[in-house]
């Protein structure tokens, strides 16, 4: 089944990384990505929250910044295809070794269109 691993961390910390530190984290993550390559589907690193725009639905207001004002920010997410929660947790633990700090939220996927253009055909069964 599909899980998303939502990556939360304190942006004040991650933007304080030097380029070398950032590169080192990415190299360590790359190893884990390769290890679990069969399970990984899209993986997304988001731009800093300063690049975010929020549309508030109740009044249509367009606001600058992320929706949730939290200590940790959503900085990216993975979609993984795993047999069970245990495997998803195992992947998240491996990722934690490579990129400590913050938390991974493991959230099972309910509906998934790998390509939005296929919506007309209905979800793959």
């Amino acid at each position: 089944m599909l899980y998303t691993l939502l990556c939360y961390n304190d942006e004040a910390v991650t933007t304080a990384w030097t380029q070398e530190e950032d590169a080192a984290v990415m190299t360590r993550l790359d190893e884990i990505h390769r290890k679990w390559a069969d399970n990984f589907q899209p993986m997304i690193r988001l731009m800093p929250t300063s690049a975010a725009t929020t549309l508030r639905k109740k009044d249509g207001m367009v606001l600058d910044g992320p929706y949730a004002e939290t200590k940790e920010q959503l900085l990216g997410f993975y979609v993984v295809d795993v047999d069970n929660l245990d495997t998803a947790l195992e992947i998240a633990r491996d990722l934690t070794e490579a990129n400590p700090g913050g938390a991974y939220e493991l959230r099972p996927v309910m509906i998934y269109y790998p390509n939005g253009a296929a919506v007309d055909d209905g979800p793959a069964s």
Partner: protein
Amino acid sequence: MDQPVDPGWIEARLVGARPQAIAALLRYFRNLDLAEEAYQEACLRALKTWPKNGPPRDSAAWLIMVGRNAALDHARRQARLADLPDENAISDLENTEPDIVERLDAADYRDDILRLLFICCHPDLPATQQIALALRIVSGLPVARIAAAFLVGERAMEQRITRAKARIANADIPFETPGPVERANRFAVVAAMIYLVFNEGYTEADPASERAGFCAEGIRLARLMLRMFPGEPEMMGLLALMLLQHSRRLARIGKDGAPVLLDDQDRSLWNRPMIAEALVMIDKAILHRRPGPYQIQAAIAALHAQAEHPEDTDWAGIDRLYEALERHAPSPVVTLNRAVAISRLHGVQAALDMIEPLSEPLDGYFYFHGVRGAFLEKLNRNDDARDAFGRAIALASTPAEAAHIREQLDKLKQENRKFS
């Protein structure tokens, strides 16, 4: 979780929390030295307790509270030689943390950080001291690194920073919450200082040098401001502008250290993620419909960034933007830059006519004579071009600039030989 805490990780957290922590401690103590000492003390305790207890959820709030308590205890001890504070009482913040986190959320931090940056921009301080102060106090760079960047000894830089701090301490630091006009004023001053930090790094030819690191620091400061004030279009413009200029980092300096003109740069070396982020920031800024000089300069840089080849450049768009910039921030330098767009659109003679009236205000400006020389060269007025390049070399402020112009001169000489 019981994983050991990596010391490098604690370091990153301390650096990340520093601006907020120092800014809040400054509001509390109203004295920069006390605020810095309190922060240092809090960091020492963090290094001791975090590996044991794990880092707190909100590092800044923890450092503020521990720093404040430590400084107060210190003051009390000095006043009446009281007992040493109970280390455990200070480290055990589990219950008190949510309270302080709530009280210190967004609104407080915002003006604290703005104030901290603002006092580094005291008008009595020369630009280099503003930069040094911001890098030391806000970014927390070690004095040794700042000294290396400015090519002075550590001791001399230490003294310079101490003097600058004394100057600030004697000035009235505005601690009341600013009104909207005052806040806007502070914002503009701080934006200019952030750009100074960036430019100090940008003029450095060696991308691996200490000074070149200031570019990343300027970008970090702008992002910090946007986290606090997410709806400020000029700060978005400034961030976009810096990202676009920084995206060319690897392409704009040749192997010999001389600058490479935009037309001659290897565009595959431009940093695409930085460009993408900058374009997003410009889109966001435009939604506010409050154009300003940083946004317009960013938009100009963006048009260059979006051209896959030099000949794809939207010169008409760039000309229109420079026209807008002349209205927002009139300056002969802006007109000079516009002339480059005009030369592509309407020919070199039109551009040369445009800059002739600038020869007086810009007579002492290296770049003016360089551009004028290039125009004259294209019109085959080689003797005039040689004179202009000669003036440019005399005014060049770095060896790389001079070398760049000398290369133009050498080209002229080759041309002459061809024709003679």
